[in-house]
């Protein structure tokens, strides 16, 4: 299945990136390009919705880490929405749960963002 990547920006300035399909060595470049494109457009607060991601490997993790590095350079943020155990397991194995904020829903992420302001 090909990777589908779409985005929208909320009134609050949070850019939500919805990802659907398999993120692997073949498809990860598409997500990387999207993240780079958004940063180049001045979108520095990103939320990647991974609820429809069917597969994620280390190439995908590397792309997310690279995206986080890019937005941090602009005092931005890159957080995730994920409740799928098989995807969360990969973040736990690699210790990346300490690096990314991981939320159970877009609404929860938005709520926490408002609380932090």
């Amino acid at each position, binding site marked *: 299945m090909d990777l589908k990547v779409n985005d929208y920006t909320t009134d609050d300035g949070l850019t939500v990136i919805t990802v659907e399909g*398999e993120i*692997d*060595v*073949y498809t990860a470049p598409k997500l990387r390009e999207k993240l780079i494109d958004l940063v180049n457009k001045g979108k520095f607060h990103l939320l990647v919705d991974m609820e429809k991601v069917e*597969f994620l*490997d*280390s*190439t995908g*993790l*590397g792309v997310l*880490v*690279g995206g*986080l*590095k890019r937005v*941090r350079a602009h005092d931005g943020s890159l957080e995730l929405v994920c409740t799928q155990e*098989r995807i969360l397991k*990969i973040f736990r*194995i*690699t*210790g*990346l749960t*300490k*690096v990314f904020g991981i939320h159970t829903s877009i609404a929860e992420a938005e709520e926490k963002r408002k609380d932090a302001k």
Partner: protein
Amino acid sequence: MAIVELAFSALPVHVRTARLIVTAVARRSGVEEALLDEVRLAVGEACSRAVEAHRRNCPDEPVHLELKGEGGRFEVTVTDAVPGEDIAGPGSRTGDRAEGSSGDLTAVGTPEDLAFALANGTVDLGLAVIEGLADDVEISASPKGVQIRMSWPATEAAAAT
């Protein structure tokens, strides 16, 4: 003993095909459904590593997989043809891989540090995933290339039929 062998061109798109085949053979070999995701991911990581290594060094050489069901285990061996490919950091190519060669991920502080470590190869997320998922892993380097052998429990009855 049931053996399936597979060779594929070092193209990222074929890693998905390899994952599908390995998952099907693992299921057929009696690997529990709950473990199939782990098999798929770990083998995908090993294949991605091999593909990347081939693309840098010998793009025309195929990547080899051997899938074996015997003795209550399902074993997968991914073999590349890149003797110079570093799997454990600078200077650690020959012999068995040293313990913890995926890099100490917990020691990497900021995303900037982690991104740098990923870029220079001191941290290998792929190996970390393989080590975290495979029931048994053995990584060895020889003058012919690198072999990653992984195995999981399987029911012998299914493997024999």
